[in-house]
Structures are given as structure tokens and as C-alpha cells.
């Protein structure tokens, strides 16, 4: 089921980590309507691109951004509702999308390099 644009709000649970470490507790951030477990998706930042540029996740899932570029990057919501902060070369930061979103499609970019853009689509567990 897709989220309703008008009545949902969302919150990012920031769990910034460095050196590509993700805390195990993040991996089961939330379960809804069944036994499907939340998972952590990985987005590689490489050659000034988010890979993949389009990602579909479920509510409660986490995303871990890994920076393979020499220079620091960020993953920052266009509406500024969440931000990973600076991600250094060969380090990572993760966020858990733990509450309902206003809009199931979230566009984000690198605050330092605005030409880098990507998109997340959030669905809930059926």
C-alpha cells in the first residue's frame, strides 16, 4: 500500500556511523502488518552519482550511504527534513525511515554538490 500524501508525516531516525559500520539494532527498526523485517539498503556514492539513483524502500527500512569519492558528500532531503551530514571518503552514514512520510517519494541531493540528485520511494508493509 502506498502512503497517503496528505496525512502522513515522517521522521528520520539518524544513526550516523562511520567506517561502514551499521548498528545491528537498526536492521530491525520496525515491523508492520506481518513478519517482514526491515532491511538496510546501500547507496554507493561514486563519481558524483548516487547509485542507485532511484530506490524503493519499505517503512522502517534503513539506507546506508557509502562514499567512494575522494571528496566528502552528503545525502540531504530537498525539503531539508533530513540530512546525513558529511560523509567522508570511504565512510558511511545510515538513516532509518521509521515513521510515516508526508510524501512517499522523497527527493534528495548532495548539499555540497547540488547537481547530484536521487530519489527514494517509501511504501509500507502490506
Amino acid at each position, binding site marked *: 500500500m502506498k502512503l497517503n500524501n496528505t496525512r502522513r508525516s515522517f521522521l528520520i531516525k539518524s544513526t550516523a556511523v562511520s567506517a561502514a559500520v551499521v548498528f545491528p539494532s537498526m536492521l530491525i527498526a520496525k515491523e508492520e502488518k506481518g513478519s517482514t523485517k526491515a532491511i538496510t539498503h546501500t547507496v554507493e556514492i561514486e563519481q*558524483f552519482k548516487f547509485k542507485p539513483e532511484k530506490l524503493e524502500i519499505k517503512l522502517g527500512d534503513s539506507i546506508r550511504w557509502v562514499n567512494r*569519492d575522494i571528496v566528502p558528500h552528503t545525502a540531504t532531503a530537498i525539503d531539508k527534513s533530513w540530512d546525513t551530514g558529511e560523509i567522508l571518503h570511504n565512510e558511511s552514514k545510515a538513516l532509518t525511515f521509521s515513521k510515516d512520510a508526508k510524501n512517499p517519494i522523497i527527493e534528495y541531493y548532495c548539499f*555540497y554538490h547540488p547537481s547530484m540528485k536521487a530519489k527514494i520511494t517509501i511504501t509500507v508493509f502490506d
Partner: protein
Amino acid sequence: MNIKSKILMAALAFGLSTTTAIAKEPSELNDLEIAHVAYTADLIDIKYAHLALAISNNQEIHDFARTMIRDHEAVNEQALGLLKKLGAEAQNNKLSQTLNEGATVKIDELSKLRGAAFDTAYAANELGYHKAVNDLVENAFIPNIENAEVKTLFQAGLKIFKAHEAHADMMVKKLK
């Protein structure tokens, strides 16, 4: 466009007189001289950025300038690390000196400006500077670099500087 024309374009972008003497064509520089030119070009843009932080009151200019400092310092750190690993040292050369001379003139020009006049001039210079340097790196340096690791670093650097060029272009259009 031949290499000589590119150099002249670059020289103009850096605020130099076209009569400035350049001892060697960029394509004739060895890897260590090319590394020195690139390192110098990074330091020059860091200087421009510090000037922008000191003079401008525009938040976008500040954000851009901080990105220039952050990125160029990161690239130079990688370059120094690679040179250390290779047991080599960058070699100063006429082109590096010419770039520095041009930057001194440009900084003098920019430092006399204030407000929107400074912001517009800084953004335009960043666009022109990155275009010129990217042209040199892509067409004169990368094809002639012999060491594979140095070439890889320059290819990564070019991606970064092209993103800067695109960012500067956005800034120039916004300030119009």
C-alpha cells in the same frame, strides 16, 4: 582547437596577459610537473574561496566557497599521498608560476569589489577558471600522463572539477 590556443584561453581566464611567456606546452610537461600545476591550481581556487568567505555576505557564495576549500584540499591530500607512495616530489615549473602570477592579479581585482559586484565577479571567475583548468586537465594533461595511478587520480579529479564547473554555472545564472 590546438593546445597553444587552449593555453591562451586558460591564461585569459586566469587574468593573464596573452604575452605572458610559457616555457613549455602543457602536453610537454612530465608527470611531476603536471602534478605541480594541478596542486597549484587547487591552492589558487582555495585562495579565491577564502577571499569569497571574507568579502561576500551571500550564503550561496559561502556554501560554494566552503565546498571549493573542502574538495580541493581533499584532492591535494590524495595527490600528496600518492606522491609519497611513489617516492616522488612535484616539480615546480613555468606554468605553475604563471598560474600563481595570474591568481595574484585576479585576487587583487576581486578584493576591490563588494556586495553583488563581488559575488557576480567571483562566480564568473569560478566558472571560467574551472572551464579552463578542466580543458587543460582533460585535453593536455590526462592524455600525456604516463603513470597509471597518477592518471587515475587526475581522472577522478576531473569528475570533481566538472561538478564544480556545473555548480559555478548554476551560481552564475542565479546571480544574473
